[in-house]
């Protein structure tokens, strides 16, 4: 069942990466960054939910045996996913503000034309 989530998250990641590599529109590149991070977050959350052998690091031998017939979700990946979402929001906000400035200076947001710094 979880294989759908794993495949889906990797596909979303690759889709975002594809946008960064191929799209020439700067806003689309930033959308690619966001989609890529969404794929990672989905992977995080799906990985935390495992029906078999789901032992969080905070639970040790005795408790784990008691809880073995009582499955629960690993809380750590959810916390990590929250931090990751936060960082992604910061990166996207900063990148979008840079795009506004790029448009002010160059009059375009096509990466083919924004390449004065080369060699």
């Amino acid at each position, binding site marked *: 069942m979880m294989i759908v989530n794993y495949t889906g998250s990797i596909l979303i*990641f690759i889709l975002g*990466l594809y946008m*960064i*590599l*191929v*799209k*020439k529109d*700067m806003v689309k*590149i*930033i959308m690619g*960054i966001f989609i*890529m*991070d969404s794929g*990672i977050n989905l*992977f*995080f959350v799906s*990985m935390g939910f495992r029906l078999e052998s789901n*032992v*969080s*690091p*905070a639970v*040790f031998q005795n408790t784990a045996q008691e809880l073995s017939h009582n499955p629960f979700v*690993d809380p*750590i*990946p959810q916390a*990590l996913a929250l*931090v*990751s979402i936060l*960082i992604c929001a*910061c*990166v996207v906000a*900063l*990148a979008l503000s*840079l*795009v506004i*400035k*790029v448009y002010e*200076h*160059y009059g375009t947001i096509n*990466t*083919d034309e*924004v*390449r*004065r*710094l*080369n*060699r």
Partner: protein
Amino acid sequence: MMEFASHFPILSVIIPLAMALITAILGRKLVWVKYILSILASAASFILIVMIFKPVMMDGNIMVYWLGNWKPVEGQAIGIGLGIDQLSLFLALIAAFVSLMSIICSKRYLAHEEDGGKYYPLALLMTGGMIGFVLSGDLFNMYVMMEITVISAVSLTAFKSYKRESIEAGFKYIVISSVGSAFVLLGTIFLYSKFHTLNIAQIAASFTGHNFDPLSILALAFLLSGYAVLAFLIPSHGWAPDAHAAAPSSSGMMFSGALALTGVYALVRILGTLYQSMDLSSIQNLIIFWGVITMIIGVIMAMVQYDLRKMLAFLSISQIGFIITGFGLSTLLGITGGVHQMVNHFISISLLFICTGAVYFRTRTTRLNELGGLGKKMPYTAALFIAGMLSISGIPPFNGFISRWILYKAGFDAGFWYVAVIALLCTVLTLAVLIKAMHSVFFGVQHEKYKGVKEAPISMSIPAGILGLLSLAGGLFPEPVYDFIIKPVTSAVLNSGRFIDSILGTEYFKADAVREIAVQKLTNEISGYNPLNFLIVFGVLLLGMGIFVFLLYRSKNNISVGTAAQTTAQIAAGSDDMEYTDESDTGLFKVLKSGLGKYLGFMGRTHSGLVNDYSLWVVGTLAVVSIYLLLVL
């Protein structure tokens, strides 16, 4: 005292971050207050790190700090831990020192800016992020701290938002680095899904005996290629030259002098501690190959630059290649050379960046063809630039010499003689590049418009003087540097099992006594080097290069001014952009460049300035590294 001192590492991270908040909410009139507060915060963090120097470096303890006192139970780490061994402390020392110097000399730079006070919160965030990055003993915290550092570094790159170059460089930096960060995050998750922990020590304890499965090998590939963006190893270096050229020089100093070294730290920590795989020859070959590529392409690209800061950025990439090669050799001598090279790199590149900054401050340009004859006006800066130049290219009596010597010797001893030869060639080319830069900035014809140029201001000349003295002292008295810094760090890199045991409170790894004895014995071997041999080889190579250039000159005597490399530059840069052409270049280097342009011009052309291409290089690195690692491990 000791109980109290255990809080110093976390305080050295918290103080700059907290002060960043305070300086951010102060009004824009209070630039002076912000300046003083930033100096105080970074100095406090530097002093706190120096105060744990004795227990860690001299007594050989490894400090472990658990946030909220969540200690490991039954060898299972549950809390967030800071693990400070000699390697982390060494990097934290470098990061704090370079940040302090950079903040001190940033004052006069920002006098030209409209709202210069905004610089300080960003610089402090970067300081705290870098120190937290190297002190952290937790993979996810390393990721978070890297993001703090990178976001503030991007903001510093785009700081002069009225210049289009800065904005463009900032955009490239944030796209490339977010690809790298995504790789790091994905690698971290792969490891978490397997081991259900994020603590470096606990993951490493599961890897005893190199029992890697495909998932952890893939995670290694993701982590390596992600952190290579931070360390700007070629081909993940796309952001670095542009960011160095566009940012204020004081932050360029932080990028090369500290940020890149933290990236190298991450590579060493992952390979050495997390995966315990520095002794595998397949990993060594990968790292040496990567280092050699970085070293040689960096210096060749530096030769064709027309901007002083961009040239220094490429030289810095080349230096990182030296360091990585040293660690990749993985012998005792190689790691010693790599660590020593780290010391020299941060001193000399910071010195060069401060001098460049002083030149920029007085003349408002760093284009090599516009500058000239500043030596008479700025003798102090010129002298320090020459000191930095000799130091970075490894000429006695400055500090660069010993580390280079150790690296060549390590290359020969480990059976990689061609690595040693390439390293020597790169050293000669580095010197050639810097002599060209020195010639066109400080000597030669003095332009009319620089008549009124004065000496560098005091806030820049004091840090520059300190760094110049350090580079001279490091060359004249290598033994104390070796005893107090290089030896403990080398020992920590070799005996990474001790780090794991100290964090978990277990005894998975017994400290390897044989390696320890070898580290102790190395002192005699290193102090017994013979500078004469080196000078002879150096002279022979210089002579060979002179003959090569002479032949090239004779065969190309009748070529026109517009060489192949330059015309492609003009086409690629657009119709009105002639600023990268160099009309007043002297004969020798024009010939060298046209010769290089014929054979190696493709290197320049691949730097297309297109952000998609640069991201593709990062992804390509990931593909190559993961295929290689999956095949060999």
